[in-house]
């Protein structure tokens, strides 16, 4: 057996961004029994960076929402590499409202470099769409299970990552800013990203200790990109268990507990 060296935060960033890593399509294929995509925000657009639809997982109806990076160049272009527009977040809220109406639980798959920084995105209120989404999911009267599968890129990730159980894959990362962005600002040198990644504490293990996530889902040896089926099956198992737990709670209690969880985040003050 070769000597094992500890993975650095930047190693995780590279794994989390690996184009061979399972994409939303793979998660839907292996986690869901079936899936029907639904389109559009009823206002201007159908954003391809954020996809949603109803399906079943282990016989239970669910709404699936997820960032869609795409597997081919065409898909990457169409979906802005999973960087959602305001239209995407508004579609997510529209579908989540529908799920709430029938008390159908929601499963989200988070994998985005961040919300799309574009002209139209700003003009259509990227900030407002994310803000609304945070408020909306905090108050939603149906269970929400979140899985951080790859890149948890700042506000664009958080907008669909407010939930009752936040699971995170072993090699995923989740951060307030990209290591490159942070290095550019605080180190004035983008190449210091590895130092920034380390300082920001963005790996699943660190985030579990900080209380930002609830559980880590192990990946196959070498990473999820080596074996999509095994990686997605582990996610499925964790999602099924979380859904089962949450189904026992009445809606009001669920919302109270979700608030208590958010409320405790970073409360270091007596």
């Amino acid at each position, binding site marked *: 057996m070769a000597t094992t060296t500890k993975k650095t935060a930047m190693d995780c960033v590279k794994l989390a961004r690996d184009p061979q890593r399972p994409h939303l399509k793979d998660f839907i294929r292996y986690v869901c029994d079936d899936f029907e995509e639904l389109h559009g925000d009823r206002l201007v657009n159908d954003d391809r960076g954020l996809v949603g639809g109803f399906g079943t997982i282990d016989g239970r109806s669910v709404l699936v929402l997820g960032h869609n990076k795409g597997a081919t160049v065409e898909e990457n272009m169409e979906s802005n590499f999973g960087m959602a527009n305001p239209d995407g977040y508004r579609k997510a809220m529209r579908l989540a409202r529908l799920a709430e109406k029938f008390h159908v639980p929601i499963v989200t798959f988070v994998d985005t470099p961040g*919300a*799309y*920084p*574009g*002209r139209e*995105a*700003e*003009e*259509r*209120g*990227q*900030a*407002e769409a*994310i*803000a*609304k989404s*945070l*408020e*909306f999911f*905090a*108050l939603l009267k149906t269970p929400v299970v979140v899985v951080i599968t790859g890149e948890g890129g*700042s*506000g664009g990730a*958080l907008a669909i990552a*407010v939930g009752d159980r936040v699971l995170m894959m072993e090699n995923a990362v*989740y*951060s*307030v*800013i990209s290591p490159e962005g*942070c290095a550019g*600002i*605080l*180190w*004035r*040198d983008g190449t*210091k990203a590895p130092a*920034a990644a380390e*300082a*920001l*504490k*963005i790996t699943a293990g660190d*985030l579990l200790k*900080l209380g*930002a996530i609830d559980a880590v889902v192990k990946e196959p040896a070498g990473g999820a990109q080596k074996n999509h089926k095994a990686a997605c099956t582990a996610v499925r198992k964790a999602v099924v268990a979380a859904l089962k737990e949450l189904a026992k709670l009445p809606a009001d209690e669920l919302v109270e507990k*979700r*608030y208590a969880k*958010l*409320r405790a*985040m*970073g*409360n*270091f*003050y*007596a």
Partner: protein
Amino acid sequence: MSWFEPKTEKAAIPPAKALWAICPKCMSHMSKAEWKANNCICPKCNYHGRLTARQRIAQVADDGSFAEVFRAVSYSDHLDFHDATGPYKAKVEATIQKTGETESVVMGTCTIGGHKAMLGVMDFAFMGGSLGTGTGERIARACEQAIAERRPLVLFSASGGARMHEGILSLMQMAKTSAAIGRLKEAGLPYISVLTDPTTGGVSASYAMLGDINVTEPKALIGFAGRRVIENTIHQKLPADFQSAEYLEQHGFIDKIVERRDMKAFIAKMLNYWGF
């Protein structure tokens, strides 16, 4: 006395920076005294410049009514964060010394034109008005106290976004504050959000954009992503007024642009319309 005798002492000329103010929007020059006398508003272009939290409170709260709360809730260095220029702790302690504030938002109860309110004002001089765990905690507590005491919430934002020195938990403050605001609104209480120059990033993408009404001041910068980031992404130049208060009003995200001198009366008027 020789013609060329060297001067032994130079007359004490104050540096130009101490005398002249330059409007960051239209680049026109004026004396600092003029800038201050005009309430930090550019006399040429009407850009409403930045105020400290205390200046703002003095302009909005009724005289002597402001009672500060949560001052002991300050920053947290739970990551023991160090960057190229040193430890976060040293930077934030220096900021506390410089500003006299202990977090980027100052919170308190007061009356505004006779209407009781919970008033929060962000100070851009405190770490760029960044949203840290202390900032988020103060806002969440303010919402809870406002619910308990049936007070409307008025919050002036001024921020570059989340405070990266506090890592993921600073991001989580976006969710925490938005959740608390949501509960305040569900309790039937009004929330007036005033987005002042600048309000961007994680603060615009959380509580600042969640007002029952969102108001701002002339020429304030309001947006999510930075101009340079967008230009580098789309490979296009953006219009000069992009992300200005006026641009946001045109696009439907701002209820009204209010002149500084009218702000207090405007807030009181709205609270009066709504029966508070």
